[in-house]
């Protein structure tokens, strides 16, 4: 493993924390997820974060593109890709470093939500199994969304195009799996259903950790990272 991946990841993560847009994304996520938690904590209802995980899935549809939009396109726009590509590191290391930087920011975004767990603990005795599984599912979902965003970011020098493109791509996947599967015949409906992240995340929120789900998120993320690497490599040749 190239030693340059870690410095690239840390620089990327720190850059997001040094820009106002990074803090806006964090604030937006915490506000919306906080509302979901506040609504779900009611007397007589079970002490769980299922509502939070369900809402986070939708919030991440917007937040993940915002995290991923500047990963590569900002480098292209500002021209900083030039000295980066002149360094003795592979395009693969650049992409992986950028991706890990995005994932680190996602974890930073999720970290304050542990307050919700502490709140549940204070109010009652929550079941930690579904909470841990839910966080695992949310992280894996975020990783997939950021990988999709990274690919689109590596195709354009405009962060706005990267943001909108990722948003559109994620919504397309979501709609194809949710709505599209009901309108096509077998076996296409099953293929489309297999792409659904909603059902997989629902399993995590219930406390079910299925290795098939984990493999799905990791492999699809890896696939998009590979495509982003290819897109960056081909950019050199253009």
């Amino acid at each position, binding site marked *: 493993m190239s*030693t*340059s991946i870690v*410095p*690239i990841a840390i*620089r990327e993560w*720190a*850059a997001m924390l*040094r*820009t106002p847009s990074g803090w806006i994304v964090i604030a937006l996520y915490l506000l919306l997820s906080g509302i979901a938690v506040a609504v779900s904590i009611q007397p007589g209802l079970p002490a769980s974060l299922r509502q939070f995980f369900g809402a986070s899935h939708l919030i991440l549809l917007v937040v993940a593109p915002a995290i991923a939009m500047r990963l590569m396109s900002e480098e292209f726009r*500002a*021209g*900083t*890709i*030039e*000295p*980066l*590509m*002149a*360094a*003795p*590191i592979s395009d693969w290391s650049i992409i992986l470093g950028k991706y890990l930087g995005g994932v680190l920011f996602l974890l930073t975004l999720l970290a304050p939500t542990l307050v919700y767990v502490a709140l549940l603990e204070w109010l009652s005795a929550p079941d930690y199994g579904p909470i841990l599984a839910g966080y695992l599912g949310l992280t894996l979902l975020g990783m997939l969304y950021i990988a999709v965003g990274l690919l689109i970011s590596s195709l354009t020098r405009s962060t706005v195009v990267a943001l909108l493109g990722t948003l559109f791509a994620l919504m397309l996947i979501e709609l194809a799996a949710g709505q599209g599967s009901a309108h096509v015949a077998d076996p296409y409906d099953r293929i489309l259903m297999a792409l659904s992240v909603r059902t997989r995340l629902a399993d995590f929120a219930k406390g079910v950790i299925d290795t098939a789900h984990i493999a799905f998120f990791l492999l699809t993320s890896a696939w998009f990272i590979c495509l982003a690497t290819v897109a960056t490599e081909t950019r*050199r*040749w*253009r």
Partner: protein
Amino acid sequence: MLRLDQIHKNYGAVRAVRGISLEVPRGQIVGILGPNGAGKTTTVRMIAGTLPPSRGTVAVDGFDTLAQTRQARQRIGYLPEGTPLYPEMRVASYLRYRTKLFGLPRGVQRTATERAIERCWLTEMRTRRIGTLSKGYKQRVGLASALLHSPPLLILDEPTSGLDPAQIAQTRKLMRELAGDHTMLVISHILPEVERACDRIVIISAGTIRADGSPADLIRHAAGSGTVLAVCKANPDTLAQIPGLNIKKTNKMDDGWTAFECEGESVPAETLRERIGAACAAQGTAIRELRTVGGSLEEVYIGLIEQSNRDDAEGAP
């Protein structure tokens, strides 16, 4: 140190670089000149390894930039045009980050950073955010970043572009200091800068090398076939008798002086000037002006570019 062997770069149907070959020995400072769109930056990007050639090879210190990418890039310090940097980072952090990208051992990272900061006069700016620095300081950060890993080959693309005269003087001074330890490629379209700083000048136009030599050689070559202007009180017949001299134009002035535009027939302009001077001295006539027209790098450059444009218009390679 650097070898380009028939490199080509095509962008679709556009042939940006058309078979450039160049060999640069260790320690030489080479200025690459050319008009906008001549292929200078494309050539430099191919040397720096950020752009692969469509055809041909580039070798840095014997390492092929495509086959032995890592080794070749380790030997290059590159300051791209416009000095792209991360504005949110602090100067020292940025340089430290670059040492990590170049794989310098942990113990060396700090000393390399400090040395580059000192060398590029950035000590007072080390904790400042790059985005808050002036253009001149940003240029220095870019230079420091290119120097961090002590590369034998330095590539500076438009190092003084957009700087004020004081900043240009500082950058030039720094380049002169660096000259002893590094082979340098300086890409610029500021002719006096290249003429002063470089041992050798390569003029590129329409993707090919149009001239290659020391500044003095290029000027001498052009001056050899140039015109000599003599403003004196000599009789035209006196000048006409000078062997190898051909008077192109005579212009009698009101005050008794005459301006002669002379050309040499297989005689260099330098010799022609000597002969005119000697003839006037022998006759005891005064000379007000005696100089070669077409003897500056600027004129050499413009002449070559115009020739290149004509060749291009005629479809010549």
